């Protein structure tokens, strides 16, 4: 996968695409900001002692009543919007990335098995995928959340809120990977380098992992990008519907849900600042995904 990018044409195309460059820059800034949140954010929205209710509802600094200390204003708890967003992006990205990775592992693993072995393995995996497809992501999320609630003690469930949500999102995304991986494997399997490896008597797992997998990473990378965007959006949507994260672990989606309450009240920044931020992040990731798609599709070049 990397040697694809390492190749000059990738870079060259990249420098010729202003959209991709801007998107990459935006992504780097946002991800960087999220990673460095504990060091660069003015306050920590998880630490109740770093902000004060007294500072609540301050508008952005350039508006009357604004406080230069809070560039983009504060929310109803007195939390600095920028800090909340940085921490929120951190959580959103964490959930998105983890969900995407789990979905990739699960989907690619099952897709490899199904495509490689065919027969009943394929049938079972694809039927499970059908069931998964029949249940929209929101319902899947409910399922996982519900089961976790039933199986885990309440305290543990609260602790595991983020992992559970991540798992729920991951489960609604894996089918994409499985289908793509399976289709690619079925093409690759008949290619001669795979035949050569099989003929030599290499272990199926080795054939899949060492030979096939590196060759199907291209399309998978595209899906990974697009699904990272979907995962972040899905988390936001679930949080909006109130089945995502609680308000004390504010992801971008939770921030938007909270902000929704201030839509009409005049404190517009509580809603629109995180929304704009979320959209910027997702648009950037999607643009990068588009770029990768073009890069990996030689026919589109």
């Amino acid at each position: 996968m990397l040697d694809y990018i390492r190749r000059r044409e990738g870079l060259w195309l990249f420098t010729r695409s202003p959209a991709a460059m801007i998107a990459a820059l935006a992504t780097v800034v946002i991800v960087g900001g999220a990673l460095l949140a504990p060091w660069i954010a003015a306050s920590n929205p998880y630490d109740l002692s770093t902000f004060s209710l007294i500072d609540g509802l301050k508008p952005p600094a350039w508006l009357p009543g604004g406080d230069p200390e809070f560039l983009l204003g504060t929310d109803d708890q007195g939390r600095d919007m920028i800090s909340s967003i940085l921490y929120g992006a951190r959580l959103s990205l964490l959930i998105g990335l983890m969900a995407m990775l789990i979905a990739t592992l699960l989907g690619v693993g099952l897709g490899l098995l199904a495509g490689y072995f065919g027969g009943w393995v394929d049938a079972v995996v694809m039927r499970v995928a059908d069931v998964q497809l029949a249940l929209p992501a929101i319902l899947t999320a409910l399922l996982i959340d519900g089961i976790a609630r039933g199986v885990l003690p309440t305290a543990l469930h609260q602790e595991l809120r983020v992992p559970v949500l991540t798992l729920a999102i991951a489960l609604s995304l894996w089918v994409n990977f499985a289908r793509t991986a399976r289709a690619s494997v079925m093409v690759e399997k008949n290619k001669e380098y795979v035949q050569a490896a099989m003929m030599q008597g290499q272990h199926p797992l080795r054939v899949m992992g060492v030979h096939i997998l590196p060759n199907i990473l291209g399309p998978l990378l595209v899906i990974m990008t697009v699904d990272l965007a979907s995962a972040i959006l899905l988390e936001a949507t679930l949080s909006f519907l109130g089945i995502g994260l609680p308000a004390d672990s504010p992801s971008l989606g939770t921030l938007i849900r909270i902000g929704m309450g201030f839509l009409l009240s005049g404190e517009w920044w509580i809603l629109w600042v995180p929304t704009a931020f979320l959209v910027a992040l997702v648009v950037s990731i999607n643009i990068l995904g588009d770029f990768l798609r073009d890069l990996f599709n030689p026919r589109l070049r």
Partner: protein
Amino acid sequence: MRIQRHFRPALCATMALGMAGTAAAETFRWASVTDPQTMDPHAVNAAPVTSFLNNVYEGLVRRDGDLAIEPSLATAWEPLEGEDGWRFTLREGVTYHDGAEFTAEDVRFSYERAASEESDVRSWFAPVTEFRVVDDYTVEFVTDGPNPLFPESIANFLIMDSGWAETNGAERPSRDAENFATRNANGTGPYVLASRDPGVETRLTPFDGWWGEDRGNVTEGIFTPIGNPSTGLAALLSGEIDFIEPIPIQDVARVENQDGFKVIQGLETRVIMFGFGHDHEALLYSDDVSGENPFTDPQVRLAVAHAIDVDTINRVVMRGTVEPAGQLVPEGISGYSEAHAGRPAYDPEQARALLAEAGYPEGFSFGLKCTNDRYINDEAVCRAAASMLAEVGLDAELTTVPVRNYWEQLRADDYDMYLLGWSPGTFDHEHPIRFLMHTQDDEAKLGSWNFGNFSNDRVDELLPMIQNELDPQARQEMIDEVVAIMQEETAYVPLYTEPLIWAAKENVDLTQRADNFFMLRWVTVE
């Protein structure tokens, strides 16, 4: 829509007449968050249901705009002589929407229905030992002791027509499957249930044969549940609905500033408070305290009270809409103790001192459990409180839970400190004493919402006396004593009384009742 199929032709005719008879047709559309889940007055004891059905059904007594009891289907009531209980004299000449006549038999039927196994309101009749029909217009409830508040406690006991219920196979409230009364109604109230599409739209039209006079000019009332507050507000501001309750606190200013709209704001009867796990052996969610429960120490509980700045919460989170509270009922509710009107002041120094005295100079960490969809800004209040508690070293680990899981968790004792809102169903101080102050007693159904099992022998002793005392003065003294114990022990930390915030078009005139009941008959559209 569907309901019209079930209606009898005669009823449709009545409705048509009613429509024609009114000079200016005033259609009034209103919205709230929750749809009443049933039209059966005895099936579910939930505010959205009782509130809505009070427009269609009536009780023996009813509450006026100030929550005072006034005659309704009963014109008078008095204690029985020689035994404990009450006698009600029924109103004559009252008819149901379908034309049937209201008699004592209906009261008997409704009593038996409401007190049946299947009923969700049978606890109202727990003290009743016998019911007697004296004649067509007199009934008697015999109770197991003097029960001065009995008439108050049955203000939401709505009377159903026995003949109608029997004809339609709705003799008992339905538990699992629906019955005829789930989606149809036949009361004596001022409005007729014209159509019902659950979760979507419910229409009311005036009942021409209503006995009362005190009724506004609405000729058709259309109720729609709107779950999403932003959507609801948008619907009001775009003029699609005339009235909505509640609206979010932060939107009050916006609605007030908009031409043609107004906010009707008042105090509800619900007091928001923090409770403690009095009978817990140890803290569940502590990093630094194990094997003991600091909250068993009244000083610690008082420290909590001193650490929370209710005024700032009011100003920022509640935007000045609430009234700080020091007791389990707000001022104005019968039994409110004027003698103990104060509440612990915001005083972090004092709080720290108290903690030090109790042996926790550095404070400790614990778990605070709150709802996030039950009370107004509940989650924000808890977060604000947690950050204030952190100031004095009380490090609250906040967990917020939707109400659908909340009670279950509280009943499982899964908390160290919790948030609770309590609205006295009887609008009397006895109610919270019974449910929140008395030691848990499943047999006698006492202290059933006293999750932390606060237990004080004197309180347990006083409760039956309060219940049986007919002399207001003596009764108040006993209540004062309970309040004193509550405050001394800091059994709970009452924070404030929740506001009621309704919004309507400017041309709508209506009455806001502190129990958040919305009475269509008090609406006049100008």
